[in-house]
């Protein structure tokens, strides 16, 4: 009987019911989006950093990896010192730089270049071909497109340009050995990777035996924080950054989005609760005569309260389910906006659907909405029957 009464009540005011469901759906969608935003960046960045199995990054003292032009001097000795620790399984030095691909016209295509240890590197995923050997290089799709080259081509690259002599410096002939996707670079960014010794040689004396960072893979079972502290004590000229520290630093830089997510999420929760609370209150006020009659014919007060709260629950449930679909669509759209940040790694997402967080948020909205109808329901079911019937009859 309760269900029949609930259906009758909700279908009796179709416009109101549809508007309420739409309102709850938009609130739920916004809440879901904000939950996805608040945790998405962190999880996405964590996944990016740990995807290649390196738990620590060693950068020049006081810098973040590639945050400045500073480099680690005596890279070979530094790497050897790091390998002394039994807790370190692998050390992969990386040098960042720029290479130029001279054209016949005299102009050039420039690109980011990473000098890596091809056997240990964690910066790119090979899509076709093979890792670069001596006098070899791998390009990403953006650079292949910009240079009009393909895997297997041989070309000349240069490490710099001398404006006085009007010629490219340190030219080298290399062969494109493979096509790669660079994990930490933006999709549209032109990039190449080559053995670190080759890139050091391209940079001349200023780059001799230097590295921008070293990626460290801890031995199985090793305490990463202990390794970080050991590096800090052993090598005072470098800073070791763990994945957790890097995530905390990125979070601090992007704290705006987390706080925006918290504020808008709270507002959407309040709006959803207010909407259902208002609707249930008005609905109860309109139907106090009906409730008095039900009470007069022997229907228990609890049954009436249950009926009213069930109406709120149906509104919240329908709105939340609609909001879930709406939220996923809007999150996808909002994500496409934010991932167009210049220079953002292509695998970073701002909105990440995490079932547990999403269900918790929607359940919170549902429970809060249903609870918002509890007081009007109790009040509606507790009015003096005789007085209400007399007033309604008048």
């Amino acid at each position: 009987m309760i269900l029949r009464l609930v259906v009758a009540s909700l279908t009796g005011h179709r416009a109101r019911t549809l508007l309420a469901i739409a309102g709850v759906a938009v609130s739920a969608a916004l809440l879901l989006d904000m939950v996805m935003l608040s945790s998405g960046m962190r999880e996405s960045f964590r996944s990016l950093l740990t995807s290649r199995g390196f738990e620590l990054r060693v950068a020049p003292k006081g810098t973040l990896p590639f945050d400045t032009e500073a480099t680690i001097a005596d890279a070979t000795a530094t790497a050897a010192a790091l390998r002394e620790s039994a807790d370190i399984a692998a050390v992969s030095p990386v040098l960042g730089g720029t290479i130029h691909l001279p054209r016949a016209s005299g102009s050039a295509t420039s690109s980011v270049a990473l000098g890596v240890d091809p056997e240990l590197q964690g910066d790119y995923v090979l899509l076709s071909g093979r890792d670069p050997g001596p006098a070899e290089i791998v390009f990403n799709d953006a650079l292949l497109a910009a240079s009009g080259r393909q895997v297997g081509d041989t070309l000349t690259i240069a490490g710099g340009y001398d404006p006085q002599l009007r010629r490219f410096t340190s030219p080298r002939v290399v062969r494109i050995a493979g096509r790669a996707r660079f994990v930490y670079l933006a999709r549209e960014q032109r990039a190449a990777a080559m053995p670190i010794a080759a890139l050091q040689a391209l940079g001349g004396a200023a780059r001799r035996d230097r590295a921008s960072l070293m990626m460290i893979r801890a031995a199985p079972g090793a305490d990463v924080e202990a390794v970080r502290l050991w590096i800090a004590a052993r090598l005072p000229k470098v800073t070791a950054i763990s994945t957790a520290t890097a995530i905390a630093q990125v979070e601090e830089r992007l704290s705006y989005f987390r706080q925006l997510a918290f504020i808008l999420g709270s507002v959407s929760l309040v709006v959803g609760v207010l909407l259902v609370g208002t609707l249930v209150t008005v609905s109860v006020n309109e139907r106090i005569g009906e409730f008095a009659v039900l009470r007069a014919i022997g229907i228990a007060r609890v049954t009436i309260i249950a009926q009213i709260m069930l109406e709120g629950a149906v509104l919240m449930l329908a709105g939340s389910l609609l909001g879930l679909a709406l939220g996923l669509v809007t999150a996808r759209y909002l994500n496409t906006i934010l991932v167009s940040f210049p220079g953002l790694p292509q695998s970073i997402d701002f909105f990440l659907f995490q079932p547990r967080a999403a269900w918790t948020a929607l359940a919170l909205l549902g429970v809060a909405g249903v609870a918002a109808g509890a007081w009007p329901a109790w009040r509606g079911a507790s009015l003096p029957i005789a007085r209400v019937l007399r007033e309604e009859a008048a």
Partner: protein
Amino acid sequence: MGVGVRWVRRSRPLRPLCNPARYPLAIGAAFAFATAAAGQGSADSMRTIAIDSRLAADAGLKIGDAVVVIAQPGERGDSVRIAAITSPSADPSEVSRQEYRVRMHLDQLQRVTAYGDRVHRFAVQTRGGASVDRAVAAIDAAAFGFVAHRSKDVAVETSATFAVVSRFHRAIGVITIVASAIFLLCILLLKVDERRRDVAALRLSGISRATIVKSIVIEASVITLFGTAFGVALGWLATLIVNSHYQAVYRTPLRFALVTPQTIAFALVLSIVLGIVAGALAALRLARAHPLRLLGRR
């Protein structure tokens, strides 16, 4: 030119002043700008530098303090005296980076960093707007390997991040507007529905449908107008809180939220239009119904 340098206080044993755990974004590195226009050395022959107020506060430095600037840990560096403390600029691109800024003489920075006779860029001032294109063409033609950029082009390029944030805000704004429109429609529908007995009484006493609809629409407009005024006041208060909070967090004079006349006008027009539409829809529903039905007698 701009490069990373480190600084140590000279009066104490050499040590990095920045604690990476406490200042994770600066991490002992300062972004130093050398300027050819900076003055010459002070009377005691020590060269002078200017530091920003964030660095001064965090490192406990003040004008007149002697410090050593070094490019790499372990190097000898140069002793300098702090001659000025500058305010951070209200530049959005600097907000999230939280870097310290040190301004040095160009030649000194080149020497400290072993950068040679090099600079990252020249800022060129032209005479009048018309001469910009000629200057760009002349510079580009003068030496291959140099590229001249108009300041406005650089501004567009560097503001790409904020264009993305702006698009994101607009999208969130649209969702919020849709949510508030539905909420407003619901509330006005309920409010008008509550008046069904009054409307029935008015209709039975001979008041026309048009008059009732008009009166309800006017009532909805007035409610919306007052609601909007309250909302504007609330929004203005929110901007004060937001600006105060984020200016303190990021230590910048940048204003993060603004209530402009255009924003107020947009909110006012949108709310009133929504209010009138919602009021009219609800009023028409009531006016079309038979008065006795509104009274529950049919």
